[in-house]
């Protein structure tokens, strides 16, 4: 493998790893929240550079993985209707619902389109006034402003045949749910750099104080992640607990204020169900009453669909760091990226798929 620059330079990585080794005196469990970081850690074998005392736990920060089965079934219900064009980011199309996935709906004649941006979905609505165009609005705080903008634009331009199936999730309440669990093992967090690019990191300061836990905003390159781990371990060994920013080349304390203002205009903070974890209070965004006309769950009266998760898939335990993917009895057997049983095997950001691809079996 070639390393091209300072963010992935092997010497730089090794020298940070040496620094980590030099300061590590105790065993520490550190969680990287973001699935993008899990992917980097697996791809570049970051764990191999770390001293054995450091255990990385892979968190629930993969939007594909935490979208509840129930919502996938709702998406499939909508996409199967003749008067609908169902639009989604590519990675949601292969997520198994309880009977099929969205690609299967497309194969049997459903009008399912992959879009790069939610604004493309608004354009499709504008061009197809006789169809109801629905966008599958999932994602963390990184993606929420883009999806909010699609509703804002549709509303401003008087586009009435556009709606979103909304399941936005938020990182700080998930951190709180993990930390307040009696089984919690986590002693430090790498917070997700792109989530914080939008939201800033003020919300993490009370969490860090309340649970006496270091939280380090961290980027996505191997060297970023090593640096984030170094900063976390340093705090742990010095018995400090603060919010620090490793990714300061992009992230500011306040985040992007214009994007946050748009979020406040379109969304309320609501309770959300997380796949495998259950309902976490105030852990997501839902459309404000004012924008109820853009809420696909209301338009298609789907609020009563309730679906239980597969008992074989232990995604909930994996996403909370209580089990590693290969401790799942289905891992690599009935559950593979070609035939995923649970969501963490679908997305390349999911812990199960990352382990599978990079040979941790």
């Amino acid at each position, binding site marked *: 493998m070639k390393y091209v620059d300072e963010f992935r330079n092997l010497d730089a990585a090794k020298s940070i790893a040496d620094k980590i080794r030099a300061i590590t005196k105790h065993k520490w469990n550190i969680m990287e929240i973001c699935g993008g970081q899990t992917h980097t850690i697996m791809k570049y074998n970051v764990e191999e550079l770390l001293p054995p005392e450091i255990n990385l736990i892979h968190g629930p920060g993969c939007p594909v993985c935490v979208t509840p089965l129930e919502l996938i079934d709702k998406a499939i219900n909508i996409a199967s209707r003749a008067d609908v064009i169902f639009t989604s980011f590519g990675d949601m199309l292969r997520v198994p619902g309880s009977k099929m996935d969205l690609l299967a709906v497309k194969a049997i004649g459903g009008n399912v389109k992959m879009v790069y*941006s939610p604004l493309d979905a608004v354009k499709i609505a504008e061009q197809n006034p006789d169809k109801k165009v629905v966008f599958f609005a999932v994602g963390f705080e990184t993606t929420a402003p883009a999806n909010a903008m699609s509703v804002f634009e549709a509303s401003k331009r008087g586009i009435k045949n556009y709606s979103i199936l909304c399941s936005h999730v938020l990182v700080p309440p998930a951190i709180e749910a993990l930390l307040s669990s009696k089984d919690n093992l986590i002693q430090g967090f790498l917070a997700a750099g792109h989530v914080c690019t939008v939201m800033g990191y003020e919300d993490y300061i009370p969490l860090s104080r309340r649970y006496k836990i270091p939280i380090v905003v961290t980027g996505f390159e191997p060297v970023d992640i090593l640096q984030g781990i170094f900063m976390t371990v340093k705090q742990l060994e010095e018995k400090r607990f603060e919010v620090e920013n490793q990714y300061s080349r992009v992230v500011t304390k306040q985040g992007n204020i214009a994007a946050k203002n748009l979020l406040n205009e379109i969304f309320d903070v609501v309770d959300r169900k997380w796949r495998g974890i259950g309902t976490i209070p105030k852990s997501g965004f839902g459309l404000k009453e004012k924008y109820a006309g853009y809420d696909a769950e209301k338009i298609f009266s789907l609020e009563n669909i309730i679906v239980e998760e597969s008992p074989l898939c232990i995604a909930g335990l994996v996403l909370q760091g209580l089990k590693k993917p290969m401790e799942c009895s289905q891992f690599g057997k009935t559950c593979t990226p070609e035939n995923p049983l649970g969501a963490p095997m679908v997305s390349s950001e999911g812990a199960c798929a990352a382990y599978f691809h990079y040979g941790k079996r």
Partner: protein
Amino acid sequence: MCLAVPGKIVSIDESNPDLKMAKVNFGGVMKEICIQWLPDANVGEYVLAHVGFALNKIDEKDAEDTLKILHEMGDLNEEEFKSESI
């Protein structure tokens, strides 16, 4: 899903005051990106973009380094930006 990619602003279109758009070059792939949340973004500057929206500006050197990495990781290609490629 939270992957965000740096690209260089080539031109800016302010015809919709609520939806300032820019043509952005991502290592050779051109794309229309909304830059509404970066009121002071200029042509020639680099932005970090996610699902069609610029989340923040980014320093030129950082941006070029990241692009090189993404190219090499195979994480940046035409497919990444396509709609309806299924």
